[in-house]
């Protein structure tokens, strides 16, 4: 597959200096990096809020803050993590940087629109920041009538989320068109890297689901500002209607978060096992299947909200159907490891941790899908644990894995492997220490979003807080290690991991136009480890 290695001195895409050259750039790689900087900053801020909450929750009673402050932190942690970090997370950063190169293109289909998406993202970020003067206390779910009556800045936060939604829609459209129209000659659908399939599926959800939450947030603002009754019963509205609207977007959105992570895993496993990905078509189509089914499961968030029992049973059944393609993916990843030669480098460590944690995240989804059991577990810490196992254990860990995996390509530098691998254990152990106690708390009946709790829950909360700080140290040093490598890291070769996808066949860091000559594709990118003769045959 190696076609496009430089013949004469290339100009790196990082060559031009100055903030303006970055902000005015339409290069997908530079836009990817801008997203990387902003989303990771949001991650750090949201993470600090989580640590403040865990400090307060370490012991029963109120120690460092009043309940209102806690509620605000809880709201900001959720909103910042969801709207500013996880949703744009892998899609906008690595989707932007890697996807065009992986399909053999010089850029996305609409580069100027791509820059505009980022500007819209910045506008959303700015609007949310404006609201911090009197931050909202509604939780990231904005349920009315609480959200239409509280005296905090709900409007700025919802408008910010609304604007961010546009950024998400535009990026989604851009990627869908890019995958359809910009593939290099010979890059058939079944030769696409699985990361591309995953981003493509996530983009579909972004384009279809985001408008719905946009509309409902605008209706909420209209209710607050003009007193139009959409959701507040006193004005003639229906509060449960908002929940339907909200979750019609916000359940699919968890698949916007997790599908790209699954895509990254599917890239890293074959490279570091030196084996072809197992069940390529099953993984590719299960992404699409998950995207499709994700639209018809939303009401499992409403099992105890006055939803009819019959509707609840139907949604319980539909929810179980998501588990099947998810399980298929896990089995395929395991089969990829079978008889491989597994190299435990940092990206691989995180990928294996992802599988380990995602199995727990998936299994703990089962009692929540069982409607009669969910009645007990709904809105308890069990749900908090389940959610963090899938989204933090899933998406955030794969964001870190992707950072390490593509770091040499993006920056042209190698990070310090020893530090990264050592800090991995802080993250892995800290993570489990934080969230396993939360499952037990939830089973015991501890409700979520509580600033204070009964004394019998104290020991488990203390363990969870200790875990959270271990995790915090892990993430912080991991990111610091990457930043240090920008100055001190060794120069990265073009293909340090001996990977087959196209981004590794060009320089590290890539040139402005990625390829000197658009490559012609003759095989899928997962032919690892087999004999030389066979490789020739398949080419």
């Amino acid at each position, binding site marked *: 597959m190696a076609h496009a290695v430089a013949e004469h001195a290339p100009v790196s895409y990082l060559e031009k200096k100055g903030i303006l050259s970055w902000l005015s750039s339409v290069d997908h790689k530079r836009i990817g990096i801008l997203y990387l900087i902003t989303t990771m900053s949001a991650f750090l801020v949201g993470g600090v809020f989580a640590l403040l909450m865990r400090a307060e929750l370490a012991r029963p009673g109120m120690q460092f803050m009043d309940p209102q402050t806690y509620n605000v932190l809880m709201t900001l942690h959720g909103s910042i993590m969801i709207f500013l970090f996880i949703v744009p997370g892998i899609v906008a950063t690595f989707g932007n940087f890697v996807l065009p190169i992986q399909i053999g293109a010089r850029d996305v289909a609409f580069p100027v629109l791509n820059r505009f998406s980022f500007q819209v993202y910045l506008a959303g970020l700015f609007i949310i920041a404006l609201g911090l003067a009197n931050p909202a206390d509604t939780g990231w779910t904005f*349920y009315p009538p*609480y959200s239409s009556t509280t005296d905090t800045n709900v409007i700025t936060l919802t408008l910010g989320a609304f604007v961010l939604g546009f950024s998400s829609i535009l990026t989604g459209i851009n990627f869908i068109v890019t995958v359809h129209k910009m593939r290099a000659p010979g890059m058939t659908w079944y030769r696409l890297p699985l990361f591309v399939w995953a981003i493509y599926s996530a983009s579909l959800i972004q384009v279809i689901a985001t408008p719905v939450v946009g509309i409902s947030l605008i209706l909420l603002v209209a209710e607050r500002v003009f007193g139009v009754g959409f959701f507040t019963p006193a004005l003639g509205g229906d*509060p449960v209607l908002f929940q339907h609207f909200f979750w019609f977007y916000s359940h699919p959105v968890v698949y916007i978060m997790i599908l790209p992570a699954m895509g990254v895993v599917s890239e890293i496993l074959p490279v570091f096992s030196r084996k072809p990905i197992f069940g390529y078509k099953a993984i590719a189509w299960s992404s699409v299947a998950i995207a499709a089914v994700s639209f018809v499961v939303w009401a499992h968030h409403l099992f105890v909200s006055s939803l009819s029992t019959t509707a609840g*049973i139907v949604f319980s059944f539909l929810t*179980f159907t998501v588990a099947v393609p998810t399980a298929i993916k*896990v089995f395929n990843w395991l089969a990829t490891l079978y008889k491989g030669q597994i*190299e435990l480098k940092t990206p691989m460590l995180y990928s294996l941790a992802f599988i380990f944690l995602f199995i727990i995240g998936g299994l703990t989804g089962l009692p929540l899908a069982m409607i009669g059991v969910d009645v007990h577990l709904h809105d308890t810490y069990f749900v908090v644990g389940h959610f963090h196992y899938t989204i933090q254990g899933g998406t955030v860990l794969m964001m870190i894995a992707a950072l390490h995996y593509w770091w040499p390509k993006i920056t042209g530098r190698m990070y310090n492997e020893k530090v990264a691998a050592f800090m991995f254990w802080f993250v892995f152990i800290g993570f489990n220490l934080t969230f396993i106690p939360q499952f037990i708390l939830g089973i*015991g009946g501890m*409700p979520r979003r509580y600033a204070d709790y009964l004394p019998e829950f104290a020991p488990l909360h203390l363990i969870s807080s200790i875990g959270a700080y271990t995790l915090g140290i892990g993430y912080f040093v991991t990111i610091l290690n990457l930043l240090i490598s920008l100055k001190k890291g060794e120069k990265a070769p073009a293909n340090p991991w001996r990977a087959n996808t196209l981004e590794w066949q060009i320089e590290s860091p890539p040139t402005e136009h990625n390829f000197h000559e658009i490559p012609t594709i003759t095989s899928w990118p997962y032919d690892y480890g087999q004999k030389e003769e066979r490789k020739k045959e398949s080419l």
Partner: protein
Amino acid sequence: MSDIYPALVLPPSASSSAPVVDFAFWLVMIISILAFLVVEGVLIYFVVRYRRRKNEAERETPHLTHNTTLEIIWTIVPSLILLVLFYYGYVAIKELRNFPQDSEVIRVVGQKWFWNFYYPYCVEDQASGKKLCISGNTENINPEKGSGQTQLAKQENQFLFRIPKGRNITLQIESQDVIHSLYIPAFRVKQDAVPGLKTRLWFQATELGEFPIFCTEYCGKDHAGMAGKVLVMEPVAFEQWKEAELAKLREKLKTIGQVKDEATLIAEGTRLFTAKGCNACHGLQGNRLVGPPLNGIYGKQEEMQDGSKLTVDDAYLKESILKPMAKIVKGYPPAMPPQNVTEDEVEALVAFLRSLKN
């Protein structure tokens, strides 16, 4: 409260439906733990077995891309297991929502940040047509600083939601303001209290004792303090308590309509201001909450949303408590729900507000 149950496993199983839910719960737990051991076992085994050891040369790995038989098996087997789990979840919800015909209906009204319980046990004065029923609410402790679970746990003589053991109870759940959710872990029941809707849940308590009640839908500042306890009593003891309460109400019935002196009214109004949750939205230090502050409001000129001006007097205050949407003060949302208060209570509240003139 800390000795009620250790928060390690499921709370005590104290209702007739709890064993059905618990069976489904333990079934999914056992299946999940087995699946966890098998799948994580395979993962760990593969990683250990096939890892590249130090200084190990590159090894030929087999070119395995798919295996249709295997893939069909690992699609169908989990699907069948999931069907079984779905079925037992269905069985559990059928039990939880199978409302018995012969149950006593108790009204529960959630409001920031406590639960009101209205029993159907009443005394009536035939002559005047006045009626009083047994009711009570979990308390709104320390409303200025915010109350938490810790304070609640320490609280002496707090209100207990008393119910008899072995009798079917249906709770008809409403909300005064925002969405709340009534959760009694020991009974495995939970149902949202949605303003504008009447929802319900039922249970039959099977164990004596005190069990926590929580609010599980985030509802603002003191969400974590919106909690209380249910007390399951022997039916005989429950009847005795009920009769004693009814006797007290009969006494109270006699005093209705009697003229009370201002000091008594103010004291009663002061109590009601927190007991009825007025303080959730109205400050007394000139601080703006959801609604306008109420200190010094009596006798003040207020501008209404439609531009008209009026002086705050008894009539205006009474109207604003009973029909909050009638006149809205300029600059505030039309958010206040009609209050569930008796005429006597309105009078006491107005007297309290009058006393805050300076």
